[in-house]
Each structure stands twice: as structure tokens, then as C-alpha cells.
């Protein structure tokens, strides 16, 4: 049983743990474990769902898992609960489902938890090896990092690649700052990154991207600023400000092709004289993280 699965089993009630452990011993590449009230536990492994019919998780079991994940302190995890997920020790992401308590259209809490999905953290050290030469250019006395935008549809490994880039840039003795809005890059637990993002890396966990980037620029003086999924106009504006401030920005955005982004007027402020120097397009052609194209942009483009 690998360490990551053992970390997850610590949150499972003793009544289920033994049987689940025995069953999971026979599975490879476990990605998700799902618990639903009064339903069999299902495990997503090696690209297939394995339903474990002999282990039914009762509503009490689901509640016990939820309480253990919240460290018996729902008040301390309320912000995460409102977002629908909690990051646990080891960087594993736990999605929760139940009855939403809303006020004025805003989610205030999730009660009567009926479904829990534990996504096993997967850190791929070296996933950015193929593009690091394009991004990090050795100079006379130090390595120069070029601002790079990673484009891909969902589930193609953008976050995994950004995480590895953070680690590698940090290893070049660059001060790296990450705005980890959804806790996916560094997977902080009690403020400490559970993934290896390098020893020169500061993480602003859970901060809104635009405000977080401005805070880091003012407070941490980063040489490399990393953020995931630029979506809103505020995000674009903040990235643009960081780029024009001379900071190397490594970011990602959803898109199917490079042209989708380059021809979108909203993203124009990100390109040009002070904009991104490289664009990397990812796909799932040969599995998540397949590099389709690395395009160098001319400064005048």
C-alpha cells in the first residue's frame, strides 16, 4: 500500500478501513475513492470505475469521514466547505456533496453530507522537463525565466506542469510566488505545501487570483509569479500588470488551440512587448501532459 493511499485511509472509519484496504491492494493507479450514503464504495483506478459491492458506506460512515476530514472542526473549514472541497494532509482533494444552505444566492454551508469524493494527489516530478529549456534560458550569471502561458482543454495536465515549473524555477534560485486560488498547485495543508514546489517558493493559498497577484507583487517581490487558469478580466489585468512590471509570469488558460487565445480580444493585453514570450499547448493525445506545440512569440507580435 503506497504512502498516499495510507494517508487517505487514516480518515476512513475503522469499520470500513480494513476491507477497503484489502480491496485497494489489488488495484493500480488509484485516482479517486467515492463514498455515497447507503451505496457501495467506488474506486476509480487505471481509468475504470471499480464498484466494491461488498462495502456499503452508511450515512454515519460518510458523516464520520467528513468529520475526520474537518478535524472535527467544521467552523475551521467553513470557507473550504462553501467551495465544496477540502484539501487534506498529503495534498489530496476531498469533494463534498450534501444539502446546501444558501442565503441571498450565496452558499453559506453544506449540511447533511451524503457524498464524498477523495481525489488522490498526483505529483509528476519532471513533467515540465520537455519545456523547461524553452522557458529557462541560461544567462551570463543567472538563468532567465521567460513568461509562458500554458493552454489546454481541462484534464490535460496544466496544473501538474505549473507545479513542476514552480519546483524547477525555484531550483534555479529564483524567488517564486504562487497564487493558489483553489489549492491545486501546492495543495497546502495548514499553510504548508504538500507538493514539492521548491524551496524558494512562497504560496498564497486560497487567495482570489487578481488580489493575490497584487499582494504578492507588493509584498514578496517575486522573480517568477505562477497562477492557474486566468479567467476573468480582473485576472487578465493583474497578469498584465505583473508582466509589465518585469516579473516572469507562468500561467495557464483553458483553450483548444493557441489561436483561440491569441485571437480572443480579451487576452490581447497579455501579448505584445511586455507580454508572454512563450505559449505551450497541451493535450491528452498520449496521456495527460502531452506537449502539442511550443510557440515563441516575437516581441512585436
Amino acid at each position, binding site marked *: 500500500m503506497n504512502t498516499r493511499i495510507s494517508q487517505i485511509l*487514516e480518515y476512513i*472509519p*475503522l*469499520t470500513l478501513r480494513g476491507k477497503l484496504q484489502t480491496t485497494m491492494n489489488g488495484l493500480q493507479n488509484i485516482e479517486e475513492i467515492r463514498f455515497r450514503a447507503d451505496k457501495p464504495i467506488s474506486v476509480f483506478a487505471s481509468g475504470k470505475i471499480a464498484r466494491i459491492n461488498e462495502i456499503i458506506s452508511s450515512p454515519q460512515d460518510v458523516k*464520520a469521514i467528513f*468529520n*475526520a476530514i*474537518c*478535524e*472535527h*472542526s*467544521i*467552523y*475551521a473549514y*467553513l470557507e473550504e466547505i462553501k467551495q465544496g472541497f477540502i484539501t487534506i494532509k498529503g495534498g489530496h482533494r476531498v469533494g463534498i456533496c450534501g444539502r446546501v444552505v444558501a442565503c441571498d444566492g450565496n452558499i453559506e*454551508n453544506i449540511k447533511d453530507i451524503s457524498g464524498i469524493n477523495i481525489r488522490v494527489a498526483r505529483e509528476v516530478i519532471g513533467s515540465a522537463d520537455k519545456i523547461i529549456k524553452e522557458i529557462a534560458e541560461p544567462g551570463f550569471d543567472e538563468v532567465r525565466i521567460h513568461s509562458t502561458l500554458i493552454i489546454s482543454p481541462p484534464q490535460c495536465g496544466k496544473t501538474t506542469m505549473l507545479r513542476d515549473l514552480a519546483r524547477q524555477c525555484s531550483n534555479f534560485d529564483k524567488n517564486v510566488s504562487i497564487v493558489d486560488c483553489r489549492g491545486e498547485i501546492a495543495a497546502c495543508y495548514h499553510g504548508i505545501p504538500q507538493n514539492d514546489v521548491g524551496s524558494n517558493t512562497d504560496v498564497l493559498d486560497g487567495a482570489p487570483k487578481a488580489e493575490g497577484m497584487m499582494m504578492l507583487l507588493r509584498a514578496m517581490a517575486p522573480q517568477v509569479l505562477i497562477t492557474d487558469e486566468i479567467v476573468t478580466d480582473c485576472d487578465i489585468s493583474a497578469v498584465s500588470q505583473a508582466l509589465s512590471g518585469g516579473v516572469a509570469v507562468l500561467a495557464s488558460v483553458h483553450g483548444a488551440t493557441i489561436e483561440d487565445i491569441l485571437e480572443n480580444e480579451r487576452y490581447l493585453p497579455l501579448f505584445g512587448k511586455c507580454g508572454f514570450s512563450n505559449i505551450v499547448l497541451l493535450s491528452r493525445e498520449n496521456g495527460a501532459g502531452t506537449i502539442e506545440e511550443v510557440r515563441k512569440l516575437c516581441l512585436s507580435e
Partner: protein
Amino acid sequence: MLIRVIASFIIIIGCTYVGIYFGEKLSLRAKQLATFQSALEILKFNILFLNLPLAEALYKVSKSQPGVVSRIFRDMSLELSRDNGKTVQNAWEMSIAKERRELNLLQEDIVALNEFASRLGSGDRTDQTGNIDITAAKLSIFESEAREVCKKNCRLYKGLGILAGLLIVVLLI
């Protein structure tokens, strides 16, 4: 003669000690209730302002309190930190049961504390502070009652101890 004097002296001292012991036991309830209230105040601070998870908040409380109350909060914190699937209520009841002999509390005090534990950790910070405030208010009322009883009976027990000692000595002589 000297032996009689020494024996009488020992009897009087012994009976006085028994009287003082029972008087102190009465005052101990009020003292422990006051300590619990102080512990709840610190717990409230740790939850409301520091947003600490329960096990950590309880451990900090245990560091700030003396004697049996400290041990109860420490044991509960350790139970919750262990990977044993215990609920908050289970951990509390176990900690109370372990120290029951050291606690000079009445059943009504224990019931109030158990009710507090049954709501601990579930709900948001407002719920938690409400739970703590209600429990602290109950304990405060119990403490006032305990102090009243102590005021009435402490002297009585001490006096009875001395008188009982004197009576035994007179009867023996």
C-alpha cells in the same frame, strides 16, 4: 497521662481534618466550575479569533489551566488527534470518565458539560461561540449555587469536625 493528652490531641486534630476535608470538598466544586468557565473562555478565543481546529484549540486550553480540567482537555485533544474514528462526544466522555474521581461536580454539572461536548465542533463559529456562552452561563449559575452552599456548610463541617473530636475525647476520658 501524657499518652492520654497526646491521644486526645491526635483525635481532635484528626476529626478537625475530616471536617476541613468535607468543607474543602464543597468549595472544590465551585473552584472547578470556575476553572471550566475560564477554560471555555480560552477555547472561545481559540475558535473565534484564531480559528484553530478543535484538537489544537483544546490542547492550548489544557496548557492554560491547572489540575484536573487541564488533564480533561489534554486527553480529549489527544483522543481527537489519534486516528481512531472517535467522535467529539466519545472523546469528551472518555476524558471525563477517566478523571471522574478527581472531579467534585454534581450530576447536573456533568450533564451541562456533556451537552456542551455534543455540540462542539459542529456548525460555524457563531454556533460554537453560542454553545460556549450558554454553557459558561449555566456553569456560572451552578458556581454561584455551589458558593452559597459552601458558605453555609463549610463552617458547619469544620465546626462539626472539631466538636466531634472533642466529644470523642470527652467520652473516652
